[in-house]
């Protein structure tokens, strides 16, 4: 064999062995102890680093859970699944939280709500609010510049043609980021099992609401009447009704009776009576 080959193989091989030994030694000598539970939990978490748990990222949350600083059910993107996994790793029992979903509590888009001026500035809701309180005449309504959509880390929102954000419920993980981003407090998290919600946050009086929006709640109090909700599942709080019993079927009646159509149905009603009516009406004619 050519001595050139031999010498280069020996030199490089020798160097390799030498460095390998050095690295092996350093790995033992300077090893940092990581609780294997932390690694297991990081493995179990979705890895979105969304911050919904209140920690700066998934690994920080994993450490905090192992130290016992935070309960294991704080990861809302992971849901009950992840909570159970974490609980098993830690050997504790965890109460699963009720899964939630983000909703848009405003229906006053371009077609429904009055604009008080033409806005040509920075395309961000907080920035728009600096200019005379935003371009919407309603001081509670959605400004329609999509800051929540831009902030959503799960691509679970988009802006409709009517200038309102829409939530893809399947993708929404209830991470709360849209809720904290919205300068008007229009985004909210509600239980996934809630059938009907009120899509208006305006505390204005009837005249003021009517002059700026066709779908705003003007506190007519029809939905709290015993005729509509005999079980008291809706109560008035100043100028807005508040849903007390989210599972009541009377909420569908409230939706039907609401003159401004301020309620939104999330889960279709169980017995489609209205559909039958229209069918029978059609067959008669």
């Amino acid at each position, binding site marked *: 064999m050519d001595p050139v080959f031999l010498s280069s193989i020996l030199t490089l091989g020798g160097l390799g062995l030498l460095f390998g030994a050095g690295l092996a030694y350093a790995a033992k000598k300077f090893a940092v102890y990581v609780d294997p539970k932390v690694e297991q939990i990081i493995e179990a978490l979705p890895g979105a680093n969304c911050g919904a748990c209140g920690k700066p990222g998934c690994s920080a949350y994993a450490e905090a859970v192992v130290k016992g600083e935070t309960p294991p059910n704080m990861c809302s993107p992971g849901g009950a699944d992840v909570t159970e996994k974490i609980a098993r790793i830690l050997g504790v029992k965890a109460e699963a939280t009720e899964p939630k979903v983000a909703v848009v509590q405003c229906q006053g888009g371009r077609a429904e709500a009055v604009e*008080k*001026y033409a806005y*040509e*500035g*920075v395309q*961000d809701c*907080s*920035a728009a609010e*600096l*200019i*005379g*309180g*935003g371009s919407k005449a309603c*001081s509670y309504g959605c400004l329609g510049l999509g800051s929540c959509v831009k902030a959503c880390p799960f691509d679970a929102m988009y802006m409709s043609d009517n200038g309102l954000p829409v939530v893809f419920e399947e993708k929404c993980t209830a991470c709360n980021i849209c809720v904290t981003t919205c300068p008007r407090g229009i985004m909210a998290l509600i239980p996934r099992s809630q059938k009907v919600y009120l899509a208006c946050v305006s505390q204005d009086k009837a005249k*003021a609401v009517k002059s700026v929006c066709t779908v705003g709640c003007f506190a007519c109090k029809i939905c709290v009447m015993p005729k509509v909700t005999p079980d008291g599942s809706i109560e008035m709080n100043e100028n807005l009704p508040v849903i007390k019993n989210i599972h009541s079927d009377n909420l569908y009646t409230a939706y039907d009776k609401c003159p401004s159509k301020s309620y939104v149905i999330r889960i279709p009603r169980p017995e489609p009576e209205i559909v039958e009516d229209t069918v029978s009406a059609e067959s008669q004619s």
Partner: protein
Amino acid sequence: MAFLSKSFSGGIHPPEHKKLTEFFKIENCPPPEEVVVPVQQHIGAPSRPIVEKGDAVLIGDPISESGGFVSVPSHATVSGTVKTVEPRPHPLGTKVLSVVIENDSENKWRQDVGFDSSYQELDKKEILRRIQAAGIAGMGGATFPTHVKLSPPPDKKIDTLIVNGAECEPYLTSDHRLMLEETEKILRGMQILVRVLGAKTGAIGVEKNKMDAVKALRQKIAELNLPYKVYALHVKYPQGAEKQLINAIVNRRVPAGGLPMDVGCVVQNVGTAAAVYDAVVYNRPLIDRVVTITGNGINKPQNMLIRIGTPFSHVFEQCGGLKENAGKVIMGGPMMGLAQSNLDAPVIKGTSGLLVLNEKQSHRQEEQPCISCAHCVDACPMGLMPKMLGQFVKYERFDSAQAYNILDCIECGSCAFVCPAHINLVHWIKYGKLKVIQKQKKAS
């Protein structure tokens, strides 16, 4: 010849447009049938209304009380009955709790308003009390309660009172007319202010495009034998900004994040000085102010003395109405004024002007990419880098924006004015400031 006259570094020179109104005497605007006086016309805590529907009020009656130290009361500006107390449109764009008074056209003043010959003997505390009770808040437009500015902490020694007659905003001439027509009142008010502050001296800064006012002031000072000096300043925007004015007149620099009192100065607008005179000597609350109604979109531009609470629509009626091509109404000057969305909003203590632009002047041009020409850096009177600030904010690097002193921006608009790419620099920076302050609050 900028180096010969006093000024500061940076700044711009937008077209002045002062010829429209500068030679018109201040006219009295007839009070409307109904005035809408908001309880919040100043920076600080809103005042609390103390009248109810049906109450009879005379001109000068307080209708709200201060909501704290940094707060001033509002007063009835016509005599009549309180119609209602409810949120009404406000020049800020939102609805603000306001007292609506129906005018009985009798123009009756409250009893205790009148010349008080003993005013020379009043002590400092009483003067400050009168100033607050009269509801005086900085009349240059920022509406910071005057008595607060006049009560610096004891460790800050004030040696110079600077009265601001620069009126650097284009179009506006209300301070100019006031200096010509109420020269003595301003100087007497200044005397009171100097006494309250215990300052050594007083100075008045006026831009060189108002030499007639400079002459009138100098003449009056000689006549009254006062020790004050009038400085004719270089015509440059924002010459009337507090920190720039101090820099130009006494050649001191207010430290970053500091206040004028840190360099021994207090700055008051000429309008404020005149109002202080009225308040202390006549016990007369602030119920009206001089407003310049101007621009290419109004039929009869003029300077008017208007009761606070007069709706803009009533003011425009007195000025021959808006022209057909009127496009935008701005309260204040074109550089820092607030665009208005509702003409039912009333004149408030900070309304220095009502500017009506025509359709052509009203629209923004589309934002284009920054070409890093650094015109904005040259123009910034605070020595900041607006281009960097704007981009940091755009890409949500608020920490970097803070490190580049975004909070020192005075929002004068010089950078956006010179930007060849039409970038909304001030808007980006305002938004950035909001985010930085929110972050600071969260951290603390």
